[in-house]
């Protein structure tokens, strides 16, 4: 190598002197010629090190796999200096750069009052990078490459996608940590550099449907809306121009293993280590409620928000029905629910914890948790101070002597009252016949003395033609005038109805919103393959700032459990809640689909009969016919013929 460098420096020197010579005197050809000889000598030695990618000779047959015979093909020449400084192949713990990304995982288990178990997984990847700037080369470590490419290609500011099977029963189970409507939901904030938002949205849904193996490609302009107030960005950035927001739901989407597998693939540890080993699809989908989601948003790294980073939150919520698997004894364990136990944390995770909600069980009179843990933690969740037992999976002691953690909850009594959720909603279709109907939306404020405003968002497909003049909002029998209404009428086959309003809910009351509609007749190709099943109408969304019982934590960057830090808290006195109502199933007038063919046959027959008689009229020649002899005469003639007598 040293010899090389010598020759190169010599070469440089020669080139310099050479150019000087040429400038000075072009007559000294002999001298320059000699110089060139030395220049050309160098390549001979240099070729040895140059990238000689000699392929193995004698390729007898079509071989798919071949060994590459490569000598060290370093681009020498210009890079000689670089090679000197390049880090030698050593294990240097001190010089290791601080990774710019961070991964956390956690599992919250909350025994519900109905006797069910609510398990909520959250995986968070934080990455200190800038997708906004158009840096071309992207290098991913913990953040999944496929999502990163989507964000940078489509200039996404925020992306929230959820797939849910089953309906969250707020009245029995309380509020979930992360609400989601049945079916698929997707809402995206684009950056303001996007010019063609609709085109980008269409492409994005197609790409996401490929990534998540879901029918998101059915999202088009007929089920996409631009809510004006209900869906504000959850990350940093004060965007108010809702033309960069798109929201769509597919209430019919069925969620199953094929959606779970790509979702698990986005985790850095996959399902090989950490909490994700529990995610076995045969158990997860044998449950009352299953919801998986991906949320991507930019967040602040510190309190002053000097540095920003991208947050990818993957959540999976599941409610197991206890009564069916274990009759008699009410018992719950990790193994029974997930058919796996935990043996290690994901080695890439900076924190890996299991929380068990023991708020309703301070003295252990309701249920008993084993193994016991000395670690307790308190967190403000949904306006309530909850107490959790914490199992830290990064500590070896958690796994005990058997090197495996199998949490067990044994119920002692099933008493205890659940605090009624302060806000929940219901929805149903009223009316009879197949022409008109009425949508009723009920919003319950269970707070004993505080009234609070809620934002109601309704997106109704165009084939239910809303009569907006029949819209009534009533609470406690009195008319309750909304302070803000944003209504965008539908266009047939182009866009749905969008109805958003801000309603003040009086304390301890039910507010009913009704609106009448007419069912439209579809074209025969627009019906689904099973039209008599009915047509789904997505859930209404009720978003609200609910007055809190305890002071909420407004510092979003402080270290706190993941489940309590999703919705940012702006003020201490209230917390943000989003409630989804049931989706509706509406019957539309359905024709008999064999009718067109019947009509074709019938009209054709009529035409043919008419044609036949016309044809006969035109082609027959009419002539007077001799009246034929009577029957008796013919018989008599036959007899006479047989007898050989001439006929009559």
């Amino acid at each position, binding site marked *: 190598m040293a010899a090389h460098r010598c020759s190169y420096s010599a070469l440089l020197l020669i080139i310099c002197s050479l150019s000087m010579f040429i400038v000075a005197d072009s007559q000294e050809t002999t001298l320059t010629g000699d110089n060139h000889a030395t220049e050309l*000598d160098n390549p*001979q030695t240099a070729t040895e090190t140059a990238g000689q990618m000699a*392929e193995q000779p004698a390729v007898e047959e079509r071989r798919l796999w071949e060994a590459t015979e490569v000598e060290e093909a*370093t681009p020498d020449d210009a890079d000689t200096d670089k090679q000197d400084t390049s*880090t030698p192949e050593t294990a240097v713990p001190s010089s290791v750069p601080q990774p710019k990304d961070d991964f956390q995982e956690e599992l919250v288990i909350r025994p519900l009052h109905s006797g069910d178990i609510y398990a909520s997984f959250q995986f968070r990847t934080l990455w200190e990078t800038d997708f906004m700037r158009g840096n071309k080369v992207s290098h991913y470590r913990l953040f999944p490459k496929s999502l990163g490419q989507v964000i940078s290609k489509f200039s996404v500011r925020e992306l929230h996608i959820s797939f849910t099977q089953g309906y969250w029963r707020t009245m029995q189970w309380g509020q979930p940590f992360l609400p989601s409507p049945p079916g698929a939901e997707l809402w995206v904030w684009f950056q303001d550099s996007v010019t063609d938002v609709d085109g980008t949205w269409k492409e994005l849904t197609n790409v996401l449907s490929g990534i998540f193996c879901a029918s998101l490609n059915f999202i088009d302009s007929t089920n996409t809306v631009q809510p004006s107030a209900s869906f504000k960005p959850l990350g940093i950035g004060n965007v108010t121009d809702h033309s960069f927001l798109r929201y769509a739901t597919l209430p019919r989407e069925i969620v199953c293993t094929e959606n779970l597998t790509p979702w698990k693939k986005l985790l850095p540890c996959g399902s090989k280590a950490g909490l994700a080993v529990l995610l076995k699809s045969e158990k997860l989908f044998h449950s009352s409620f299953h919801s998986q989601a991906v949320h991507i948003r930019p967040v602040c790294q510190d309190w002053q928000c000097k540095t920003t980073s991208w947050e990818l939150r993957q959540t999976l919520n599941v409610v197991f029905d206890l009564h069916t698997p274990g009759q008699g004894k009410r018992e719950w364990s990790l193994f029974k629910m997930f058919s796996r136990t935990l043996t290690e944390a994901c080695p890439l995770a900076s924190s890996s914890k299991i929380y068990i909600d023991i708020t309703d069980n301070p003295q252990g009179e309701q249920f008993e948790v084993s193994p016991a843990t000395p670690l307790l933690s308190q967190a403000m969740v949904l306006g309530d101070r909850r107490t959790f037992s914490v199992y830290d999976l990064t500590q070896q002691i958690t796994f005990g002597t058997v090197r495996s953690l199998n949490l067990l909850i044994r119920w002692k009594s099933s008493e205890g009252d659940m605090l009624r959720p302060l806000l929940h909603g219901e929805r149903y279709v009223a009316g009879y016949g197949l022409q008109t109907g009425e949508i009723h939306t009920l919003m319950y404020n269970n707070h004993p003395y505080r009234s609070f405003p809620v934002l109601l968002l309704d997106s109704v497909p165009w084939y239910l033609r809303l009569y907006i003049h029949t819209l009534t909002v009533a609470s406690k029998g009195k008319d309750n005038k909304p302070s803000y209404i944003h209504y965008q009428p539908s266009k047939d086959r182009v866009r749905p109805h969008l109805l958003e309003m801000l309603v003040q809910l009086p304390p301890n009351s039910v507010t009913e919103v009704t609106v009448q509609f007419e069912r439209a007749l579809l074209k025969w190709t627009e019906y689904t393959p099973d039209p008599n099943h009915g047509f789904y109408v997505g859930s209404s969304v009720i978003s609200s700032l609910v007055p809190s019982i305890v002071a909420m934590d407004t510092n979003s960057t402080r270290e706190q459990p993941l489940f309590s830090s999703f919705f940012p808290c702006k003020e201490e006195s209230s917390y943000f809640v989003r409630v989804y109502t049931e989706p509706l199933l509406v019957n539309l007038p359905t024709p008999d689909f064999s009718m067109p063919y019947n009509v074709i046959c019938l009209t054709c027959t009529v035409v*043919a009969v008419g044609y036949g008689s016309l044809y006969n009229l035109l082609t027959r020649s009419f002539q007077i016919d001799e009246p034929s002899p009577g029957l008796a005469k013919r018989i008599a003639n036959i007899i006479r013929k047989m007898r050989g007598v001439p006929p009559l």
Partner: protein
Amino acid sequence: MVGVPLWWRTTETYRAWLPVSQINELANMQLQLSADVEVVFARGTVTPEQQKKVPLTQTQDEEHTVDGDLIFKAWDHRFESPCGSLVVYVIPESSSLLPEDMDVYIGQRRTALLRIGAQMRVGRTVEQLLAHLEPRIKQVLQVMSFSHTDITAALSDRVRLSPGNKESIADSMRAFKSSPGYEITFSLLNPDPKSHRLHWDIEGAVQTYIQPLLTKLAPVANFSLDSQTLYYAMLGVNPRFDSSSSAYTLNSDSLAHVINPVEARLGSNAASSNPVLNFLLYVPDAHHSPLYIHDNKKQEVPSNAFHSPRWGGIMVYNVNGFYRPEAVLPVDININMAKVMGVFLAQLRLLLGVQSSTAPPGFLMAPCGSTGLADWELDRLMWSRSVENVATATTTITSLAQLLDQIGNIVINDNIAEQVSSAVTSLQLAVAELEAGNLGFALQYSKEAIMASERAFFDPSLLHLLYFPDDQKFAIYIPLFLPMCVPILLSLLKIVSEARQKRREKQAKKD
């Protein structure tokens, strides 16, 4: 009578006009490639009387005589010759520019030095001199721009190859098909994050080693680069333990099964549909290291890497040296990117089809320099790419025309007709530019042709009425025509029977 034109008008499919004759012409097209070659004679190679007689242009080559100095000016001022052309400098035999045993030196740019043979001095006339030079210039040309095998390899998918040149078939099968863009993905596979934590400075390495090459290749295609780290990524086969060398080995026949489980996790590029070149760096876990790849002859492959044609490359990087008994797990390991990128760069060249033709004896090649690619290598690639593009676009267009000709149900919209004619125009332009030797334009036009032809071929509107079976038409028309046939058939029967009766009567009369 009124119904027939109405029925005709409403049931016909819309078919825009296509330049069928031009397409048919394309199908039987003869490609002609030409390259500009400038031959410069240094002082002392040509005698004055020869100098006078040198013709200015010849069929293939263009020749000038100039003073010797100019050569060196050209060398030093990095004389930029246009893409696709060549400059051959002929130097006297006594010149010390070249080492004794070498006759030809091929530079990094589009230049070559050619030593005039000793016996050449014997030939006195220009014709003799040129006749002597011609085969050698041809040889240089074959190395530096294109040869027959290159072109056949580029056309291998379109043209049936004569058996014999298997080497070039292997070459052409290895390289990716021509495409307007490529995605290059580097993946670091870490099967055991518990025992080692790997750090690779991929950003710096890409800037240093890969980017110069890609910048140089920019006229051929667009490249996008990214990298990822995959944890718990296992190989598909269990390496065998070789007790003699106390190492694990992967045999060449088991390599085929290595990639499949990994590929499921690599993820396709969500944001584009260009072909992806995968480069995997596999760092075996502590229990399976060191791991070596063995070739057919059970020999260790020195680079410890292999590549899969039209897919990418895999390199195994052993780190077992870092597991000291006292080491605390996980061990932090910095990967030597110079070593890794050397292998990947070589594989990248192979997969992109930069053919490293072995030089004939007596040839001396310049080192490839900081970009890893000489200008003439780029030209070679561009030649074969343009030919391949032209061939692909031609087949696409002709097969589309054939298909549309055969199946009458297909609707041809105006935009498809537009795409087809633009593809045909670009093709003709590309062919003309190839003939003229304007390589850059030829490649550009051939790319446009390929894009337009693919867009036309894969347009979804072609499929709308493609499957419209005859039994459905039958089912719709039969309720009308069957009852209508009844009176017609009856009257026909009647006519026949009447005619028969008449004939019988006539015969009776005759009798």
